[in-house]
């Protein structure tokens, strides 16, 4: 199968601190790939290199078969970035944000594109309100919808659910699953194990500047001691309680 991303012995240091010490991995076209790691592991640094915002000190990175250092413009044509903080313009309305991105991507009919996105992400009612009045989940949805304008083949989501409440997190998960169903390759970073487990086709674990494990969930499971059978009373988690009380989980 064709590769969407190919990274070989990638290195990056800031001043004297080595953040990436030889990272290797591949992402196949059409899959959801999750890069898992604790805070400060270097996940964002990898995203920034792959999206041409940073230049590595060593190694190569090829995105959609374009090298990130020698063909950055071609890379930018074929990708989209949703950064760690919702990169939306607070003073513009949701609709204006989408129209702006459509115009910057030089697409025809920016208004129509904006309307379609607003509809798809359930933002039509809030379309003409300033983004500063949006909730965290709405902002994230707008953020992701802005990244989808122009139908990029590959979308980078850097910690898409950090700072969101449980409801909004489930909303975002739904969106990501739909993306993958439509054939978009998704590169996702997260510090939540559950998120990687829920969404990803393949998971890589970044630790101290290296990928220490890489594979499908079931492959990763074989790395660990075989499962033991224990009888444990299943208590609902606080999250399940919370969602059951507000009762919106079922409605969605």
């Amino acid at each position: 199968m064709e590769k969407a991303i190919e990274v070989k012995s990638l290195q990056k240091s800031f001043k004297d601190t080595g953040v990436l010490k030889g990272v290797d991995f591949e992402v196949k076209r059409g899959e959801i790939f999750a890069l898992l790691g604790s805070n400060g592991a270097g996940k964002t640094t990898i995203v920034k290199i792959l999206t041409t915002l940073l230049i590595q000190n060593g190694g190569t990175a090829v995105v959609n078969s374009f090298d990130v250092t020698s063909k950055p413009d071609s890379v930018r044509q074929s990708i989209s970035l949703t950064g760690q903080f919702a990169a939306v313009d607070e003073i513009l309305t949701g609709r204006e944000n989408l129209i702006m991105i459509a115009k910057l991507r030089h697409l025809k009919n920016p208004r129509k594109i904006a309307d379609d996105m607003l509809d798809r992400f359930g933002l039509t009612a809030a379309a003409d309100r300033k983004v500063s009045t949006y909730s965290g989940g709405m902002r994230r949805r707008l953020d992701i919808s802005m990244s989808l304008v122009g139908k990029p083949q590959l979308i980078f989501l850097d910690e898409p659910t950090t700072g969101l409440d449980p409801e909004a997190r489930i909303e975002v998960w739904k969106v990501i699953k739909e993306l993958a169903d439509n054939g978009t390759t998704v590169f996702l970073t997260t510090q939540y194990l559950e998120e990687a487990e829920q969404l990803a086709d393949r998971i890589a674990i970044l630790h101290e500047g290296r990928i220490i494990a890489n594979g499908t969930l079931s492959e990763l499971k074989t790395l660990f001691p075989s499962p033991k059978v224990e009888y444990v009373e299943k208590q609902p988690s606080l999250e399940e309680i919370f969602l059951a009380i507000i009762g919106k989980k079922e409605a969605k």
Partner: protein
Amino acid sequence: MESTKKHFFSDMGVMLGRSMRHITRSMDTIITVTIMPIALMLLFVYVIGGAIQSGTDNYVNYLLPGILLMAIANSIGYVSFRLFTDVQRGIFDRFHSMPIARSAALWGHVLTSLVSNAISIVVIILVALIMGFSSSAGILSWLAVAGILALFTLTLAWIAVIAGISAKSVDGATVVAYPIHFLPLISSAFVPTETMPSGIRTFAENQPVTPIVEAIRAFLSGQPVGSDIWVALAWCVGILLVAYFFAMRVYKKRV
């Protein structure tokens, strides 16, 4: 490569439209860059002006150049502020990861400063006309005035870019404007420098705002401009080049 160059102007247009909306939707900005200078002009002319011996019968004529420079200086903190928020919120990263001319994200803010200042200056001049401002300047002199003001705006805007990109906090980003606010006050903008004590007078006569004010004043009153215009241009172009150089350096470091 080709496509990013081809679309440079339309990308800039989108960026301009975006930050112009930031201005028109911020009452605070409109007050600081247009209403405050007009209020100062009213204050100086109708309250303090009677006691000021400026050597012209019409104090509005004397005052207007300084008020215009003040309006531009007031707007500079906002350029830093808007740029700072873009960098902080990640919008800068979003633009940079898109297939658009990278410098459009910066030039958009600089161009916005030019356009918005042009609008507020026209408004201030209209108010001045109502207050009795009169000028014998011909079209060429007006064009020269517009040129100096644009150059002054451009110079300050690039200083603001340095602050906006390198600042660590909002306060740090906007603090650049304060020393610039003071320059018109210690110049010949409001009173002739001859009335000042010698130390301050030396400063006032040798800082950039005085020759700029004098040159604009001479153009508007149809007097010979003399060497002021060259000193003013030298200051502006000199600072502009240095500011642009440093702005590009901090920008490249950031991206």
